[in-house]
């Protein structure tokens, strides 16, 4: 059991190396600014952690300090409301590290990207996703019955990278009992390159009471996919892993399992 706790910590602490480059369209100075390298936590969202990046680049642009940032990878705008780790696994996939990402301050692609202009917006999005996960997992939603301060603690735990603070509340959302050792449905989303994400209702046990594995979940949602690499939290999770366990341990802070399915 303490092995599980080690895994939770390890996942929380995961960071990815990113190489931030300012888009050529943005540069207003003569000199091209140096790129900015940083380790970004997998569990966070880009809009929350670009303070230093902005400070670094805005010297080279003519934009105001609170311009809305957006990023792209090789021309593809990055959905900033996805956790950093998910974007990394999808696009950096086995490429050269650090992962190169271009920074923009103008021409926000409104038809493609959701605006997350402020911390409040990210918080709202995070809480919304959390409530959705909660609704899927539990018959009687726990999150709506929590006190306001508990909601805040989850958010600030994520924001400030405080594992203990976050998990002090999150553990309640991950708890199961011996009478009821399974969630109602597993909150998950399957991402594939250039396709919209897939989210369906899947129970963690089958009709005979056997625990469903990742393999079975994939079979139900992607019956046609054959040769593929499946990554969760940057790990090629073994397909015999039970999804109940995965939901309890491999979910992102929003309580969703973000599963990346890539071609081999």
């Amino acid at each position: 059991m303490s092995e599980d706790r080690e895994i939770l910590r390890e996942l929380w602490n995961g960071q990815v190396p990113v190489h931030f480059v300012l888009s050529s369209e943005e540069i207003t100075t003569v000199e091209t600014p140096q790129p900015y390298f940083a380790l970004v936590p997998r569990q966070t969202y880009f809009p929350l952690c670009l303070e230093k990046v902005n400070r670094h680049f805005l010297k080279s642009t003519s934009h105001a300090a609170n311009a809305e940032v957006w990023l792209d990878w090789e021309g593809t705008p990055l959905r900033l409301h996805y956790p950093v780790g998910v974007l990394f696994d999808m696009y950096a996939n086995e490429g050269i590290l650090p992962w190169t990402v271009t920074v923009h301050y103008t021409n926000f692609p409104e038809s493609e990207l959701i605006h997350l202009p402020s911390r409040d917006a990210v918080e709202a999005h995070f809480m919304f996703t959390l409530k959705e996960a909660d609704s899927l997992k539990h018959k009687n939603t726990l999150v709506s019955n929590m006190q306001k301060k508990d909601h805040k603690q989850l958010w600030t735990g994520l924001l400030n990278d405080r594992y203990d603070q976050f998990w002090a509340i999150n553990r309640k959302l991950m708890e199961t009992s011996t009478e009821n050792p399974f969630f109602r449905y597993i909150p998950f989303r399957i991402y594939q390159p250039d396709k919209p994400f897939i989210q369906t209702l899947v129970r963690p046990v089958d009709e005979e009471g056997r625990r469903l594995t990742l393999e079975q979940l994939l079979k139900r949602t992607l019956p046609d996919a054959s040769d593929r690499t499946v990554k969760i939290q940057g790990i090629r999770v073994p397909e015999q892993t039970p999804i109940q366990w995965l939901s309890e341990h491999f979910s992102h802070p929003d309580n969703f399992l973000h599963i990346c399915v890539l071609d081999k």
Partner: protein
Amino acid sequence: MSEASAHPEISKLCLLEAFGDVYMLQGRNQLKQLRSSLQMKKVAFASQSRDVLYAIGSDLKAYVWVSQPEVPIRQVVAIYENQRWTPTRGFSDSLLPTDRYAWSDESGRLHRTKDTAGLPSDYWRFERNVWEIDESFNGQLLGPEGWNYAIDFPATYTPEKRWNSMVRRRRWLRSCRYYGTELWAPLVVGDPAERGLSFIDISAGGCDVSFPDGHSQLLVWAVSTDGDIFIRTLCNRSSAYHGSSWMMVNLPDKVEVSQVSCSPAEGVWAVTATGWALVRTGISRDNQYGTGWAMVEPPLNGLITLTQVAVGPTSVWALGKGGSVWFRQGVKKEVPTGVAWVDIEWLSCSAITVSRNGEVFALGTEDRQVYWRTGVGLAEPHGRKWRMMGFKSPVHLPNEPSRILNWSFINATAGFLDPRSSTWEETEEWKDDIVEQLSHRFEKEMKNFSSLPSTVERDDWNAVADLRVWSAKHSQWEDCTIELAASEFNQTKFLIDSKHTKESILTSDLAAVQLHEHPAGLQELWVYTAVRSGTQSPIRLTGSRSVVEHWYTILSEGFREVNGVKGLKKEDAVWVLSSTGCPLVSCNDVTSKNSLEGVKWVTLSGHLDKVESASGITWALGYDRSIWIWTGSYKGKLGTEKRVQNDTHGVETYENQRWNPVGGFTSHLLLPTDRHAWSDESGRVQLNKDGFNLPSVAWKWDTDWQVDYDNADKKGWQYAFDFPFAYHPHKAMNDCVRRRRWFRTMKVELSAPWLPGPATKLRTLSICPEVKNGDIIPVWGVMMDGSAVLRDRVTRDSPQGDTWISVKSPTAFVDVSVGPHCVWAAAVDGTAYVRNGTKEKMDGLYWFQVEKPPNGASIVQVTVGHSAVWALCQDHTLWFRKDYSASFPEGTEWMCVSDDVFQISANAADQLYAIGLSPESGSMKTLARRTGVVPGSTIVSDLMGNGWDFGILAEHVSSRGIVLDA
């Protein structure tokens, strides 16, 4: 009552090892050996709820194993007293020559007297000393005399004497109890004709069969060496599953049988010597043994020779001579022989079995691994494929990780197994894979880029919680806030802030962290720091369960990180037991520390009363005196053991009453000077039955309140003239008081890294320190009756040893301590004894008696160091034996050292550890070490030391694992 109605949570499988040892497997990490000196050749798992197994020994005799039941197995032995009426004598034992015996069995044909009435076998004992008259007959109450009257023997008996009743009889009863549990008891052979019977196979089924009369019974079939087939009759609980006799079953002409298998439901198959299969036909509800046989041709039109058949609740499987596996298709109630054989691919098996719920298990021929057939169900009755289940070397004996158990046989007939459940599933595989990948991920994505700045500030972090802290000064719980904060110099501080307490402790100053359970279900977190750092140690915190547990994890992980504890030391460590029986092991170098303050302790799981660690092995005794051996593990990062340790603890209370002329005996009119109506034995402490609380949530009551009938009357009362005089079971004229003893046991079960040791219960034990690797380690013990014993062949690789050797002693002992040259023991009379010659001969040569210390106090404990011997007396005084040496182990005289000492343990480095009272800890027992000791010195004062150094709170210590530095 069919056993099938009980759904046990623990599923079990029975395995036989090549050497003849029988094991029960309860999940992938829980292997329990049925300890016995007997070797078995075949084994049959008959009942899971009662843990009953049958086996054929290497002596070809049949045996039965009955596990310790919750309610003892009892039988009532009955004899009849018969009398006839004559005009001259009325009813008397003068009977007609044609009559039955005056004392007989029910039929009247067998002579039975109170003295000769046989116990069913050696394993039964009478519970009470007296025979009792059966006061009821057929539901009617008879008079106290218990006579039934009739015209003659045998006729209809009536309780009333009628005008024509010429005879009468009454029944005497005496209950006896089965004591042959937890061992292989030979099935008693009643009939002289059976005496020569030897068996080669046995199978027990029927655990799911409901019998017409409602009683459950096991159906036991066996094959004799001559190829005949037998049934064991009446294998029910009241016979302790021994049954009464063997009954031969007719076989078709000239057919000899070599193997038999009985289903947990209905069905019996056998294999003949020529490799054919035999199916028992005519099995019905009224006749579970069937009436005839049907022959079934082996697979491939007889080409295959069958060697084994296994019958499940709805299926039949078989093995061919070369290891081929076959499934019998079409077996139904109407068609018991089935229809055809289906070849089951790829695995060559040496044994096969079907569990009670239809799961199929087999042993691979070559690798001797346990395999499970996946996918067995209604849709695919022969399953899909074989999956290896492992269990190669699951026995985690310390120092024995590589021991491989070679399985020779497997049986799961009575087991209700779900191999898909987490107890069996090979979870380690995918989890190990994940753990490994996580470290690769770390390397690839983070370690190589560690120079990059992070977008988050990870260095300072805070964790805060609201709990309550115990303030000893004010004797109350106070609300407090605890916090872990970063401090200067990259350390972490543990802060506690309450109304009267403000503490700040560096995590590097933590000595030990423990979690205690309370009866009310609350948990307490105990944090030990150096006693002298000014803080009250231990700091006790309580609060909501999840918060307390969370903080226990944070602190113990922090503790482990700071102290680099990855695994525990098996040698050179001091063991200590806390007041709740929890073991702690020192994890840093104890000897080099000048003071016990610097010693750090890691908590292990367990509930123990005594622990002894020396020469690389650790034995311990539970409160119920059973022996446990440490597995040597505490994997820390990768998870802890999943073994189970249990302990029982008995509590008692006395019900006291006084006689008065009006109401007789009652507890209401006790004199003011009397003891309480419910009290302890001394009478001084009031102990109501419902005043007993379980010490913690981990404890459960094992039995309900029971009356102790020992040395008491029928209702359990002991009478005396007054409290407290000699108590006797019958009320004498002058007896004015009486008392009755009630007792109850509680038991605890923990997951803890302890293996059950030898099945004997010991009062105490001692291990010889400083034994070199590979040599035999002398382990001495004192049995419950005070006799001294020595465990044979204990080594680091085999810490449980082999057998007990009795050491003849002139007296009974209460304590023993074995040193490198001799053995000291404390006797019941308060003197000590020395056994010399232990270097030459394992059990030594002679006992010498040593006098009591000058103050006349009785010695209750002794401990032998390298150059010194110490003794502890009943009055808590500590004495040093002057002039002890290898050649003169008796020493010359006792020298007083200290008082207020509760337990002692000396080691080869001549250090003396003890449990005493420190000035700061008040009345709480603390670990102590003798200061000023110069090891190996010949000067008395150097060896005696000059003071005490104190450490954490503890109840018991064993320091004999500490070795002398080179």
